[in-house]
């Protein structure tokens, strides 16, 4: 762990859709420079937690702080300013289908930097090359494969060299090699920019390969039942569910479940 300074703090958060509580009593910190993984069975509320951290859904109780500043209580202008330093990919992509991949990646650059047009083109070429999509600028999202869309979305997320990256299942649907490249890329981006990464993933190789910290959400008890380094949790967690999740699948075929 780079430093033990809390970059993101989740304090007593309860998440609910209407009267239906999805998770409650969530308390954890994400430190600067962490690669933080949100784990749990399907439908336990991982994407929902991510959307709470992004401010797309308001917590029913509790609050979320970035660098000690409350995001939950911040006004729209402050939130927008904070969000500008984030890069986000969504579970189903979120690419603009009416724009080419190149235009998708250049949009944030045009909005928030003073790059000239030529520079934007160069940076877009570089960002797409990073995810292995060099030369695909003029393709529309509907003209590339599902995995390529995932990678293009990642490329858009890192367009502005963000400080915090949020990924919802970035490597689902990728082949093992691209998936490993993606892990490597995430580590590289994190190292070179000092970014913090928060991601939802089921891929055990990535969890054990790159995650430095994690939280496990349990659907049955509707709360987090474990938090810490996933390798530690696999061997020493006092929760059998967590050990099972991390170990049994590791022994079996990890791709099958994803």
């Amino acid at each position, binding site marked *: 762990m780079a430093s033990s300074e809390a970059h993101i703090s989740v304090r007593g958060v309860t998440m609910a859709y209407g009267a239906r509580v999805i998770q409650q009593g969530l308390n954890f910190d994400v430190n600067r420079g962490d690669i933080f993984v949100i784990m749990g069975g399907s439908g336990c509320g991982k994407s929902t937690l991510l959307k709470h951290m992004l401010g797309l859904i308001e917590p029913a109780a509790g609050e979320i702080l970035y660098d000690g500043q409350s995001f939950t209580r911040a006004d729209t202008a402050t939130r927008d300013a904070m969000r500008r330093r984030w890069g986000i990919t969504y579970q189903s992509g979120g690419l603009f289908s009416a724009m080419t991949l190149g235009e998708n990646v250049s949009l944030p650059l045009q909005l928030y930097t003073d790059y000239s047009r*030529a520079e934007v083109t*160069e940076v877009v070429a570089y*960002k797409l090359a*990073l995810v292995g999509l*060099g*030369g695909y600028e003029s393709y*529309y999202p509907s003209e590339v494969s599902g995995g390529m869309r995932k990678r293009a979305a990642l490329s858009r997320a890192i367009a502005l060299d963000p400080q915090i990256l949020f990924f919802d299942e970035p490597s689902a649907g990728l082949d093992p090699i691209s998936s490993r490249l993606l892990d490597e890329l995430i580590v590289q981006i994190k190292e070179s920019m000092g970014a913090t990464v928060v991601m939802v993933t089921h891929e055990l190789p990535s969890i054990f390969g790159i995650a430095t910290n994690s939280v496990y959400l349990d659907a049955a008890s509707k709360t987090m039942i474990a938090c810490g380094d996933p390798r530690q949790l696999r061997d020493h967690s006092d929760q059998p569910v967590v050990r099972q999740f991390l170990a049994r699948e590791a022994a079996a075929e990890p791709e099958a479940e994803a």
Partner: protein
Amino acid sequence: MSPPQAPAYQLSDGPGQSATLSLSGDWAQGQEPVDFRDLRPELVALAPRQLLVDGDALGRWDSLLMAFLLQCHNYCRAEGIELDVSPLPESARQLLRVATTVPPHERPREPRPGLLQRLNPLRAARGALRDIAESMAFLGDLGIALLNLCRGRSNTRFTDFRHFCYQSGPDAFAIISLTSVLVGMILAYLGAVQLKLFGAEIYVANLVVIGMLREMGVLMTAVVMAGRTGAAYAAQLGTMQTNEEIDAITTMGVSPMEFLVVPRVLALVITLPLLTIYADLLGVLGGAIVAGGMGITLLQYVSQIEQAISMTHLLVGLSKSVVFAVLIAIAGCRSGIQSGRGSAAVGNAATEAVVTALIYLIVADAAINILFQHLEI
């Protein structure tokens, strides 16, 4: 932190056929950037076999440096120059490695038709013919699906049908009420001015009732439904195409025609005639309002209508409405099912649905009128 320095590079000749590219300053956002296109001619002139990139004097850097390096890399690969980036910071080297693992993709060139070719009338005619042929094929598929429905061997679900009936019928009452009352009034005004010249104001009633029943009631309702329901069908089916739902239906062994198109077509075939009758009634009512304003009593108006009205007029309107319903539904469903993937494609499908439906409506209405004229109906 030292004060920011403008980024710069220097290309120097080395021993043998090698060259050194020394980078200095802050290669980060906010600095006057460096353009690779300036470096290219220098590299071409020097034509080295090996290029060493030296970053000793490099300050802060971000994606701008990486974009520059990537262009260097691509140039060197194309020219067969050996690129050595080992003196650069570790993380920059790693990023460059990740960025260059997959060689850039080259999009195959598709021949774009030239302007002359695109304006070629033969080509346009062929396009139109193909469009008509596709419509006919769609109509044929629909016929087969309807036949299957009659034989009771169809995957059409009654619940869908009921849902679409509700959507295209009762939900449209408000807008149909408004348009048909106004159209009735417009007809009456139009006639009143002319008929007054002959002192035959009372015939306004004939004009309104015949005009509404045979023509305006059904046409206006159809136009409103083309914009309302036809576009909705196209958007629904287009979105389903985008989400691969239509693929899913097909691979389940269910015909999208039976499952998606038939209930929509049937719903419109049921609701459009009913809405037309409703529109006729309200149109006549609208006419009564104008007639009242002209000093014709309600009693006179009604008795005049009694003389003018005939079953034939009503049936002409209703038979048109069935034809129009099929045309609107076909235009909407066809655009939706053949839509491309993505939000823009769905938008295009909806536009296309409305435009084709309107063209179909006008052409069909003219054709039917000519036919009835000759049949003296």
